[in-house]
């Protein structure tokens, strides 16, 4: 075993036993590369995730909802800032990450490639999409890369407000008119497929390189099971239905469900979702339009 391989093995054992590292520590090249890829996708997702909801800031139906939704989207932007900073410290400049996002080289989460059609989507996204996200993010509190794990505390704290805000929006509609209830049901129907794909294919965690390096601390299926266990009963108790006739909780406590559409997931995250290009174009438009401002900030 070469000295480097021995060092890498030692590092691997260290993180696998729960050890955490700092930006100033020696990091194996493969670890750094995987870490940047993972963190960058997370940051991109926060950044692109603001766009579907941003449209509704301008349509929020009460002052309270207007304020809460603006605050929620503001949080997502703040998360993007925190996460991009961590990736920058690992050696990839923000401009380069933006360029890779716009060119399609870097990805963002599947759920942010879909349209938001009604105010019902606003509630369901904040409630269920953020619930799915917080499950992944809570697991990152134990990430082997400490600077990333640390910012996750603030992020999870803010996400809990999002879920409550979303649930409140949904509850207002479910206790409202039949049309409002219908808007929520339609939104659940629309988002269920993407939600079931969100945590990724059920690859065994031991085979997941992100788990190997303890960047992630749980497997995809574990995360999905947690989501189903936590939120399906909440959906059902409101009289909403889930568009999957096979969905149910087994006697062993394991949820069964119809196979998510993995081909759709792959196509969507590679830039072929219903709003992928439109959103990237929108992002590109403002990045280009306001480039002079960033230049003037750097200049003086």
């Amino acid at each position, binding site marked *: 075993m070469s000295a480097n391989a021995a060092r890498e093995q030692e590092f691997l054992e260290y993180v696998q036993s729960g050890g955490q590292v700092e930006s100033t520590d020696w990091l194996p090249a493969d670890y750094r590369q995987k870490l940047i890829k993972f963190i960058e996708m997370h940051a991109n997702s926060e950044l692109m995730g603001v766009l579907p909801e941003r449209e509704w800031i*301008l349509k929020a139906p009460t002052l309270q909802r207007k304020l809460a939704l603006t605050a929620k989207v503001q949080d997502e932007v703040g998360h993007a*800032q925190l996460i991009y900073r961590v990736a920058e410290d690992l050696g990839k400049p923000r401009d380069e990450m933006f360029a890779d996002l716009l060119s399609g080289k870097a990805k963002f989460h599947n759920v942010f490639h879909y349209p938001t059609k009604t105010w019902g989507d606003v509630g369901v996204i904040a409630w269920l999409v953020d619930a799915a996200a917080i499950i992944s993010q809570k697991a990152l509190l134990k990430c082997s890369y400490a600077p990333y794990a640390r910012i996750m505390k603030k992020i999870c704290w803010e996400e809990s407000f999002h879920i409550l805000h979303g649930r409140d929006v949904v509850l207002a509609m479910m206790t409202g008119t039949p*049309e409002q209830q219908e808007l929520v049901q339609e939104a659940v129907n629309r988002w269920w497929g993407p939600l079931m794909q969100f945590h990724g294919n059920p690859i065994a965690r031991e085979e997941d390189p992100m788990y190997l390096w303890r960047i992630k601390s749980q497997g995809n299926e574990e995360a999905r099971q947690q989501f189903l266990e936590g939120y399906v009963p909440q959906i059902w108790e409101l009289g909403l239905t889930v568009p999957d006739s096979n969905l149910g909780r087994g006697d062993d406590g394991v949820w069964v469900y119809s196979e998510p559409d993995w081909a759709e997931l792959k196509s969507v995250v590679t830039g072929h979702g219903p709003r992928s290009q439109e959103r990237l174009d929108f992002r590109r438009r403002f990045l280009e339009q306001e480039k002079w401002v960033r230049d003037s*900030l750097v200049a003086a």
Partner: protein
Amino acid sequence: MNERAQLLLSIADDELIIGWRDSEWTGIAPTLEEDVAFSSIAQNEIGHARALYELAATELGSDADALAFDRAPEEYRCAQLVELHLLEWAHTIARRYLYEEADRVRLGALKESADSELAGVAAKIDREEVYHRMHAELWAARLRDESRFREAVEELWPYALGVLPQELRPELARRTGLSVDSTQAIERGTHTPELAELWQEMTEVRRSIPGAQW
């Protein structure tokens, strides 16, 4: 409508509409760091609008949401400065800078008002506006040498004068170093087509199911 309610509504409408316009930057501001800061300003302005609508609502037997959303566009009393759709940073900062200066002058007068309730709300609002002014001044200083920013300030100056009543305009001119004499102010009372567009969007969900609670 009595004079007090009219005054309250004109300030509340200014704050609501500028907050609404500013919130359009949430998610797409020039930098992520600025995005977070700018969203807070938008929220503060909406919060000020809400406080003022609440005062007006007791007078008018209404509620803040109804005053904010359920009037026809022509019933709004905002100045044209806040209505303009300026999704471009030089104009956005020029407007923020001019609006904050005008608002400073206006709040200064309101804090001295014999109407203690109004004076109290004005003082509370002013404590938040301190940070908005710091923000506006920071940016104005940073962009001072950009011709597009200077042009935007000049372009918006007649609109800025229209935010204030006649007697307060010289103070605004003094603060900004711009001229009040050679400029025809764009007065409150008529609206730009941009307000109607904003109103359409702002009330879309609310109008979709009349009477529903959200």
